């Protein structure tokens, strides 16, 4: 089973990398970009026997830092 975990900074947490990317996009001449937030994508290949709770636990214990980040789990196939 393929699982994608999307990790993003919580709203309100400063994202200097997103800001730099935003600035770079503007430098390339792209207009109309209001904001950029950088995040992380993990692609996990897990056994079918792995429970949803276990995947959630993986996110909370390691993949995301719950102080500053949110996560979203997406089952691909």
């Amino acid at each position, binding site marked *: 089973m393929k699982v994608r975990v999307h990790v993003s900074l919580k709203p309100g947490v400063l994202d*200097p990398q997103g800001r730099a990317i935003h600035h770079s996009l503007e430098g390339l001449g792209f207009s109309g970009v209001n904001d950029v937030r950088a995040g992380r994508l993990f692609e996990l290949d897990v056994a079918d026997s792995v429970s949803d709770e276990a995947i959630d636990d993986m996110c909370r*214990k390691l993949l995301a830092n719950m*102080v500053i980040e949110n996560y979203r789990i997406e089952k691909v196939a």
Partner: protein
Amino acid sequence: MAFRSAVVTFPGSNCDRDLAVALEKISGTECIRVWHGDAELPDNLDFIGLPGGFSYGDYLRCGAIASRSPVMQAVIEAANRGVPVFGVCNGFQVLTESGLLPGALLRNSGIRFVCREVSLKVENAQSLFTSGYESGQHIRIPVAHHDGNYHADEETLDRLEGEGRVAFRYAEDVNGSARQIAGVLNAAGNVLGMMPHPERAIENTHGGTDGRALFESAIRGLVGA
């Protein structure tokens, strides 16, 4: 009673020797070196140091992998028993990632790696680690980090300030840290994490000795003068 300290080395630590040398020079006793894969710490430690560097190449998040390493389970248990734990720079990041200290350290607000001496204000001069300073004293200590921007929610920041747990504050904006916080204590006062490097300011050849009082305070507090 002889002072008994240990410094943990993770793969990618690069200030472990500096920290061990500072502890040895100031205490006069050997500092035990511990490897990240050790599941147990030496017995009867008075002080555990988590050094600066780039543990596990800063993979995932700074300090994230190190905070889940075998030795950290033992460090967390020791800290919860009241053993003093001191984390510098990457060691501070490991302490927040492990949950021993609140908050998180984000990328510097100015994006750039900052490597220079900065002025710090001692906010709490009553802790085990800071009793050798005067409250409000300004000291000069080097910083060298890319992810030192301290972040916590407003409620946590208010609590830290109210409980006297902000040990040091930058006298100027260095990295975007909330309320210019440079170092924080845990509720019990036996865990201190800070981004600046006091172990790099212990002898005149370093360009300053303002870091000495931190180690002297801890050693004196633990084993007597």
